[in-house]
């Protein structure tokens, strides 16, 4: 006899309210998590999409890579030891398209490497988001610091830095704009690079991402909201079952007196919690996927099923903990108490 389900059916409204709250809280969590993920892509997909490896910047710049300069002799030393190493620079800037519209972009120039798009002088490769600004292959682009023009060679997917589309240019053109041919950063792909170089500070990919000021600020605050929502949902379960249980203390006492196991009462509560949570989460997962499809163009939203799945599992675990904590009072109920209260 499934008492848990019978109670849900008899008290539809109560459980429906709980389910709706869980649905709303989890949907909000999924959306914010999708937003956090989307923003992180938008802010640093250029870096995030690199393989695992080690980043190096000059030690004296205090983790602020735009000021970093990797000396030529040192770079030579590194590339002799690690031929796969790549030196690169990122500079925020502007380009003007054929109708003289100004677009904010991130110039990226790199030494010869398959990890960065290679272009010849006078050529430029752009992030695909610029196609929405009416820029086409073959268009001629200019920059106020640059005497020549760039012909748009092609577009690439999802290459963003600091919320701006990336523009790959040649080392020669980079030097023409910024009057330097020393690069800011060196990247050595590979999981087990732990080498240190005098005068350089090394970062893992994650540490490097964290050193980008806006990146960690964005991610920390959004992730904090996600965790708050998860904790809130756990507390909701605790409070809900606490109130339900308080109303049923007499009944539990009687059930214990007639021989019902305490574990049966717990199972009843867990079953209800799981039924409500799973239904609410299933609907909210579907809605979040729908939202991913319907999200307005340009809204940085990126939510994979696997990250929703992970969050959903966390919701279930937290819900179980919440329900169990408030269920501990069931354990303490003495059958006698209920009978004697009834007798008075």
């Amino acid at each position: 006899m499934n008492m848990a389900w019978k109670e849900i059916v008899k008290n539809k409204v109560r459980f429906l309210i709980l389910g709706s709250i869980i649905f709303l809280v989890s949907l909000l969590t999924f959306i914010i998590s999708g937003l956090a993920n989307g923003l992180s892509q938008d802010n640093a997909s250029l870096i995030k999409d690199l393989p695992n490896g080690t980043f190096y910047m000059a030690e004296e710049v205090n983790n602020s890579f735009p000021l970093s300069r990797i000396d030529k002799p040192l770079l030579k030393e590194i590339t002799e030891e690690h031929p796969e190493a790549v030196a690169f620079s990122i500079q925020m800037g502007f380009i003007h398209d054929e109708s003289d519209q100004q677009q904010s972009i991130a110039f990226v120039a790199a030494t010869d490497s398959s990890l960065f798009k290679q272009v010849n002088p006078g050529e430029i490769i752009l992030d695909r988001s610029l196609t929405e600004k009416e820029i086409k292959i073959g268009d001629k682009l200019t920059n106020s610091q640059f005497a020549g023009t760039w012909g748009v060679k092609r577009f690439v997917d999802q290459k963003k830095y600091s919320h701006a589309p990336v523009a790959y240019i040649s080392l020669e053109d980079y030097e023409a704009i910024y009057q330097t041919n020393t690069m800011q950063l060196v990247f050595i792909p590979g999981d087990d690079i732990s080498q240190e170089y005098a005068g350089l500070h090394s970062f893992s990919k994650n540490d490097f991402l964290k050193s980008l000021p806006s990146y960690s600020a964005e991610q920390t605050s959004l992730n904090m909201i996600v965790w708050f929502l998860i904790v809130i949902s756990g507390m909701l379960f605790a409070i809900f079952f606490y109130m339900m249980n308080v109303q049923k203390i007499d009944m539990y006492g009687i059930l214990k007196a007639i021989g019902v196991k305490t574990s049966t009462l717990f199972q009843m509560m867990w079953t209800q919690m799981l039924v409500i949570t799973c239904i609410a989460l299933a609907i909210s997962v579907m809605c979040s996927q729908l939202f991913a499809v319907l999200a307005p163009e340009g809204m940085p939203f990126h939510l994979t099923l696997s990250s929703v799945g992970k969050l959903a599992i966390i919701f279930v675990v937290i819900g179980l903990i919440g329900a169990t904590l408030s269920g501990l009072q069931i354990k303490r109920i003495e059958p006698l108490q209920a009978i004697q209260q009834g007798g008075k």
Partner: protein
Amino acid sequence: MGLLVLEDVRKTFHNGELEEEILKGISLSLQPGEVTALVGASGSGKSTLLTIAAGLQSTSEGVVQFNGENLSAMKPEQVRKLRASQFGFVFQFAHLVPFLTVEEQLLVMLDVAEFKLRKAEKKEKVHQLLQLIDMGHRKHAYPSVLSGGEKQRVAIARAIIHEPKVLFADEPTASLDSKKSKEVMALIHDLTKRLNISTLMVTHDEEMLVYTDRFIRMMDGKIV
């Protein structure tokens, strides 16, 4: 020798510094097919005695034996099993599960007692008992729509559906009017005979003694 035997049972409660002996050496024996009533003034220890006999609390001294086995020597889980399969309980209030129908209340009890029957057989058993207590037509009703007397009849049915050996009833008619009380008492008496149960009942209403086979009067924790 009865099925349930109490020998020189004593119970002392400690209220801070104060020690109070509530039961002062009670011996009694319950016989199958008999309703034994416990009467006496409020506070004389009737409920305490009943709950001790039912294994819901322990004795301070003395023994409670069911079928020759000492309850205080059993593990809590064994006592629970005993209560679930061999004992039935009726209290002043019916304490039915609010979200179960009359039929489901009884089916749950069969599950609790781990009654080995197929679902259809369980339903048939429930049906027959409900017919017997004249509640067949209320099978699918929820407790909230039953009258006080009807609820108590369902509680009695729940207490005996699993064919217990002993029925414990603590003032089962205290919340009912006189007419309903008599009906409920007659029902308990009738079922005790029919199913050969040993019934121990607390009542403060001496009018009800006509429905019992013998009565034990208590005063200040002693039988008088």
